[in-house]
């Protein structure tokens, strides 16, 4: 048990330290790296309490996909310019918005933790008590039976978000050359090569 708690404190100290570094570090790229470290250590904590499926999914979805997109965006930013506008000179306008969001998240956390402490059997569904079967099977048993509606709703919300993002960034550009794969593949020498008799001093006009 002592080893278990050593590992628990190890990972949780890393998690808290790196989440502090995310909001305090000056360079955005370091923030993203610390965010990744945070995700990984929280994933390890999940695995330590026996939620191996959740831990692995956290790694795959957040570290493997979401954080890569974050890195993409941050790497495209001009770091030097950003430092000037954020940390030197004019007052920051981000503080009120940030405060509202963080107060909301804090309230949500309080509701969740308070509710769990107040009503102890809130967390234990009757299906989950079968400890013989593995974690993944347990999740599947409740997710596709008791909570199928919420599961489908979450899927639809995500799909809508994706379509919305595509719609917002989609712009049709005119006058751009596009390659048609069908035309490229179906070319053959008879219609690709042409022999022309060129007259002196006149040249030929080739369609480009």
């Amino acid at each position, binding site marked *: 048990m002592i080893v278990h708690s050593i590992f628990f404190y190890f990972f949780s100290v890393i998690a808290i330290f790196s989440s502090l570094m995310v909001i305090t570090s000056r360079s955005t*790229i370091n923030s993203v790296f610390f965010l*990744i470290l945070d995700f990984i250590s929280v994933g390890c904590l999940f695995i330590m309490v026996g939620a191996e499926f959740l831990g692995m999914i956290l790694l*795959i979805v957040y*570290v493997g*996909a979401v954080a890569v997109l974050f890195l993409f965006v941050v790497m495209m930013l001009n770091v030097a310019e950003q430092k000037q506008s954020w940390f030197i000179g004019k007052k920051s306008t981000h503080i009120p918005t940030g405060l509202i969001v963080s107060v909301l998240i804090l309230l949500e956390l309080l509701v969740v933790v308070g509710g769990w402490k107040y009503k102890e059997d809130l967390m234990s569904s009757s299906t989950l008590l*079968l400890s013989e*079967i593995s*974690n993944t*099977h347990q999740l599947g048993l409740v997710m596709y039976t008791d909570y199928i509606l919420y599961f489908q709703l979450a899927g639809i919300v995500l799909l809508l978000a994706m379509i919305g993002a595509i719609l917002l960034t989609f712009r049709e550009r005119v006058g751009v050359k596009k390659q048609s794969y069908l035309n490229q593949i179906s070319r053959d020498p008879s219609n690709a090569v042409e022999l022309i008799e060129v007259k002196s001093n006149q040249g030929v006009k080739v369609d480009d």
Partner: protein
Amino acid sequence: MIEYLQILAQEVYKIIFLLVPILVSVAMIVWLDRRVWGLVQKRRGPNVVGPFGLFQTLADALKYIFKEIIIPASANRVVFILAPIITMTLALVAWAVIPMSEDLVLANINVGILYLFAISSLGVYGIIMGGWASNSKYPFLGAIRSAAQMVSYEVSIGIIIINVLLCVGSLNLNDIVIAQKELWYVIPLFPMFVIFFISALAETNRPPFDLPEAEAELVAGYQTEYSGMMYAMFWLGEYANILLMCAMGSILFLGGWLPLMDIYPLNIIPAPIWMILKILFLFLLFALIKAIVPRYRYDQLMRLGWKIFLPFSLIYLVLTASFLFYFDKLPKVNI
């Protein structure tokens, strides 16, 4: 506490026992790759150092160790040094769950296939970090290309894995192998095997999808600024990843450590040898493809991943599920 230290020592012993053969086989696989490449092009390939040139990679590694490591002045030092370390570590860490036989496996965890998938999706970080930290044009472009490519092809690999999992009903790698006792999944899921193989080529940045290091456009992609041992770590990590993808393919589709058929002369050959033979078979395909197929254009690569592989594997997933459901062949879970 003492007990714990004993267990720890035992595990470290096992890990060394696993790592040394992998590093040696990575060295051999590099030699095999160059040799096959040479033979296809009617050259001899490396044949000078040692018998048949077998020690060529060792000689190369020795050369890299004694070369100077140059860190560009404008590079981000920490990230620059971290990148090859991450690539190499992730490539080796994933081997912990690969079963070489029913009980010859370091960690037989319940969610083995998810672990493999997670580790292989983390591999992109080494490349992005290397490319960004170099603070130079070509490495950055190479890193962006490579990241986009790996993220796109991971999606179809994920769906292919779900296809196999539907037939098995377990995330444990040993269960996946045992479920193929009657029929290897390469037969009922043959289209998925082909797509998995091509996606594995793209995922490991192998030709014909080696656009991140297309030398004609990007010098050497994300590795341009690396030298000495740091370059060698990228290089070895890449080959360890290729071997890992071959191992994954043989577990998912070729029956892992199971013999070809359960008849007399074949089933006395020990299980690890079957596993190694299957990995080698897949690797030979990798090597042959490197030698004969020309490089793709980048838009073609993206189109193949998103517009062909993703819809096709999704449709095949629905087909597999309906087939299993209709013929009542879904794996039963005994609770």
